């Protein structure tokens, strides 16, 4: 990536659609600049002091029709642009059930990624070409912002809350990744790159990474020491849901809704257990907010999510 940055690469399914609006807006803006500039320059020259152009009263037509027409025109243009932009964002990447889930953890001043098989990387993010990806992001400290210009995607990464980006990479290559929300001393160094590779290459790359399931091992230990297993272990006398294979499944809730047990759901159920009660169970679980540190919570979540692989295979 040397030379001059002029127009960023289009490397996601939404990038091209954003660029089309941008180009349309550029054309419209240029036209308006030419119109306003032309009017000002034209009038300035024609009606300069001493020129022989006709003066006198303003035609009624200009005071009424042209003014009202201009207002209606700009209002219409504004509404049209709003509609177009909104439709683009509404029909952009929807969250897909089979999307590849990659967890991003931001902290001062690095990006950490964890892939579904437990492969981890720092300041680099490998993604498979053409496959829907869901990035689940959380910050350990302050607000950061995950920004990949080539994807035309940006999302703030918050502490204490999971935010996400759904996208499909459409171009192979290496693209810069930045932190876009000011986060302290080394904000400008908090970057890296996204590597988009063919799906088979991605699988190979992922498998070659050192499998790091310490996280879920530690999570399993915590699961016992903190007391989760007292109720949630299959042999427990307490009537509590069995968590094996829960991750990724659809769960029926007491109030009739059905939700997918993704990471956000698991997290919420630990921190705010009374919010979404699983159907058929009493709301007896205490909250673990303030008891578990964020890294411990991450470990327990990693453990819970690892239960899917065992149960699934």
């Amino acid at each position, binding site marked *: 990536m040397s030379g001059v940055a002029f127009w960023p690469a289009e490397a996601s399914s939404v990038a091209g659609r954003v660029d089309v609006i941008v180009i349309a807006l550029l054309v419209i803006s240029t036209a308006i600049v030419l119109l306003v500039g032309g009017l000002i320059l034209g009038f300035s020259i024609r009606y300069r002091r001493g020129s022989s152009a006709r003066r006198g009263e303003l035609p009624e037509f200009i005071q009424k029709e042209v003014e009202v027409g201009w207002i209606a025109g700009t209002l219409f243009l504004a509404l049209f642009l709003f509609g177009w932009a909104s439709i683009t964002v509404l029909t952009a990447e929807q969250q897909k059930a089979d999307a590849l889930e990659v967890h991003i953890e931001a902290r001062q001043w690095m990006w950490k990624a964890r892939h579904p098989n437990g492969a981890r990387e720092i300041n680099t993010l490998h993604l498979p070409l053409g496959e829907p990806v869901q990035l689940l992001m959380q910050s350990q400290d302050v607000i950061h912002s995950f920004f990949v210009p080539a994807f035309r995607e940006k999302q703030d990464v918050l502490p204490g809350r999971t935010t996400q980006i759904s996208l499909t990479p459409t171009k192979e290559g290496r693209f810069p990744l930045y932190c876009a929300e000011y986060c302290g001393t080394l904000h400008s160094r908090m970057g890296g790159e996204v590597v988009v590779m063919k799906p088979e290459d991605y699988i190979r790359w992922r498998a070659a990474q050192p499998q790091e399931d310490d996280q879920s091992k530690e999570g399993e230990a915590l699961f016992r020491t903190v007391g989760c297993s007292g109720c949630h272990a299959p042999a427990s006398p307490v009537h509590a849901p069995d968590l094996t294979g829960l991750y990724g499944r659809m769960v029926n809730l007491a109030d009739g809704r059905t939700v997918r047990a993704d990471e956000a759901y698991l997290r919420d159920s630990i*921190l705010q257990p*009374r919010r979404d009660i699983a159907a058929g169970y009493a709301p007896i679980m205490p*909250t673990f*907010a*303030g008891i578990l540190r964020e890294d411990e919570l991450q470990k327990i979540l990693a453990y819970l999510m690892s239960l899917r692989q065992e149960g699934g295979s």
Partner: protein
Amino acid sequence: MNSGGEALREPWESLRRQREAAGFGMWLFLNSEALLFGALIAAFFATRFYHPQAFEAAGKEAEIVYGTVNTLVLLTSSLTMAVASFATRAELRRVSFWSLGLTLALGLVFLGLKIMEWRSDLEKGMVPGPGFPMEQPGAVLFWGFYWALTPLHALHLIGGLSTVGFLTWQAARGARPLRSPAFEAAGLYWHLIDVVWIFLYPLIYLQGRASS
């Protein structure tokens, strides 16, 4: 119309306008104050939205006796302040000084009770930080707001007390005519302090006690 010894000052050309200005300026300032407290109360509500149960539980720990007595004290002080506004305007000297004095006294009673209430809160350990007794997450946020809002309100009350006190002292010395529009303006400000409290009272003391 007798001007009551009031002088026409720059930039005014009529006494009526000059009088009008004090009230008008104060109303504008009250708008500003209302948005200050409005924003804080909105922030309180937004946070409460995330933790309704914790906020209710935390509200139950607030000292409702002090809160209720203080509400009555402050409401009464608004009455005496209103009397003072009318009395000064009508130049009823005795009534004016009595009602101003009562307003000041009631304001001080409010502050005194408030300080006792804070002491009791401190004794119960209701201060965010290590050793905070409530376990629900979010309960500590309620107390965060409590310790931000009540002192800010008390500061405004101290401002009101100083203003009313200063005006009364000036009037007693004869340095300020009773008809001065400043009394009315000070009265408006006093009522705002009261109105803010009327919003704070149910938020802090009543919400946790409504249902159970």
